[in-house]
């Protein structure tokens, strides 16, 4: 917008009368605009995290106030070097968490990609919006409500066993049998989070240039060849982000597991987050709980570092 000749710029009301606060607020705009949010992070995020780091080096059982004493690295040592069968040891929950994460992310990726390709031809019609509304329903529902729905489906007298019986198969107590509980949790999460993969890949597919496909078509490439040589390479950045996103978020899953199996039967579905909850709020071991919470943070940081690197490259070097 060009200034009209002869129009004197109006002095903003905030600058009148030498209100120095307004002047500082204006000159230091980014600082002032960021200050409240950053202050909140420092007070309510950095401080508690620092506090829990300190506590992680202490023995502290909440039920016996006299137990507070310096422990050095003993909490961490207990987590990492206790016998794997011990409740304290991190290895069984870690193994469960990895199983859960790898299984859910793999299934969600394959299924989500398949659905994205299936509905792809709807992109240019208003049909996609309509179909998409149904597919994204699970993303909007609370974990608790999802656990409730699936609790009814997995129940011994629930809908899944009804279908099994119709197919001539015996009923199972899906959530109560060690051999099926983990699979039931994985499939519940697949229902919830496949739509996320679908959405991300659909957005990626819509951004692909059409002319490449036309050229490939003219050159006699089969749809399968187009898919492997055009779609997959061009979609790789979106795929990487989608996968990392799901890995980090499925790794920390708590609510559905807690509400469906509470880590059982035995310890067969006890993920790290459930284990942490039990150390902290069932055994009231604040020292050990804090140490475990930092072990989880470090694992997440390692995964997030990969993610942030990829994003940084795409944002600033792409």
């Amino acid at each position: 917008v060009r200034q009209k000749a002869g129009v004197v710029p109006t002095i903003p009301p905030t600058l009148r009368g030498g209100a120095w606060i307004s002047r500082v607020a204006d000159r230091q705009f980014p600082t002032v605009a960021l200050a409240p949010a950053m202050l909140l992070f420092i007070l309510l995020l950095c401080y508690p995290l620092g506090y829990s780091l300190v506590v992680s080096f202490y023995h502290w059982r909440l039920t016996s106030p006299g137990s507070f004493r310096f422990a050095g690295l003993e909490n961490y040592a207990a987590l990492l070097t206790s016998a794997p069968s011990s409740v304290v040891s991190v290895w069984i929950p870690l193994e469960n968490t990895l199983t859960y994460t790898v299984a859910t992310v793999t299934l969600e990726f394959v299924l989500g990609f398949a659905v994205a390709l299936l509905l792809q031809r709807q992109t240019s019609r208003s049909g996609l919006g309509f179909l998409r509304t149904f597919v994204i329903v699970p993303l909007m529902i609370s974990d608790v409500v999802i656990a409730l729905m699936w609790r009814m489906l997995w129940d011994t007298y629930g809908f899944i066993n009804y279908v099994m019986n119709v197919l001539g198969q015996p009923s199972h107590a899906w959530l109560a049998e060690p051999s099926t509980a983990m699979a039931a949790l994985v499939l519940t999460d697949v229902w919830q989070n496949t739509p996320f993969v679908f959405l991300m890949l659909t957005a990626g597919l819509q951004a692909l240039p059409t002319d490449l496909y036309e050229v490939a078509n003219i050159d006699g490439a089969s749809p399968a060849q187009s898919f492997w040589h055009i779609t997959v390479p061009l979609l790789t950045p979106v795929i990487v982000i989608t996968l990392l996103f799901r890995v980090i978020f499925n790794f920390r899953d708590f609510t559905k597991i807690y509400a469906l199996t509470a880590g059982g039967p035995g310890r067969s579905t006890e993920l790290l987050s459930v284990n942490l909850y039990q150390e902290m709020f069932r055994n009231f071991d604040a020292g050990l709980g804090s140490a475990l919470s930092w072990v989880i943070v470090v694992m997440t940081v390692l995964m997030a570092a990969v993610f942030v690197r990829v994003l940084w490259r795409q944002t600033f070097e792409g």
Partner: protein
Amino acid sequence: MPIRTTVGRVSWKRSGTEAFYWILVVAVIVYFTFPAFWMLLMSFKTRLAATAFPPVWIFHPTVLHYQGIFSTSTNPTEIGEPSLGTMLPYLINSVIIAVCTTVLTLALGTPAAYAFSGFRFRGDRLLAFAVLGIRFLPPISYVVPVYLLAANIGLLDTRLIVILVYTVINLPFIIWMLIGFFKDLPGEIREAARIDGCSEWSAFLRVLMPLVAPGLAATAIFAFMLAWNDFMIAFILTENHARTMPVALTRYISAEAGTYWGDLSAGGVVTMLPMLLFVLLAQRSLVRGLVLGAVKG
């Protein structure tokens, strides 16, 4: 016009299996909607119908469970079936907490996102990515020290602590989503406002905020949703006074679930209803927000 790729189209047309294609599409839709539909049916079933095996499809519907949830009476026997009693206080808590979180998050997040999107200053990228990093912090690791500190100062089981924790956890996502919406606006708008004599603040509040309003609305829905849907934080930080709907629902989910399936389902329907309305009303901007929030943060 949206760009259309032809990978899927060619192969389906060539194989000439139009019917098969539509069967697959219907199967996908049934798969993603059936559990919600089943819970909706359950919420209208009497206890007898809810526990019938094989499950019944046709039954005499009852609204007793909804009446029970919203009744002001706390006496379960008045309802005529085993009942969890009223859930009204928890629903009110959920509404208050989600609304306050939304307002607070946007009030803090909008200026921050604007500063990140339109200004260069020392360490701007580093700070923006530090904020992004917070997003990946596992909430359970964060809520452990918050529990210890809040217990010290008597803030456990208050709405305030839940609102503050939700704000901290949601803020990174909200800031990055808003950065995306601000970056969609041409940079010249701010310059023009400045040349016309606006201060930075009035350029931001009077010129840019109204332009980014649709994005703000979508972001507000997300902020609300994250607070409304959460279980874990409210579960750990509240006891009874500040208990929210999701926490109230899980109390009976395992041991005595069969007895209360009608009530639990009705509660589940009430909890997911606002979210489903959002999907129907703002499907396009929600999808954009989800993708934006993931791709850019």
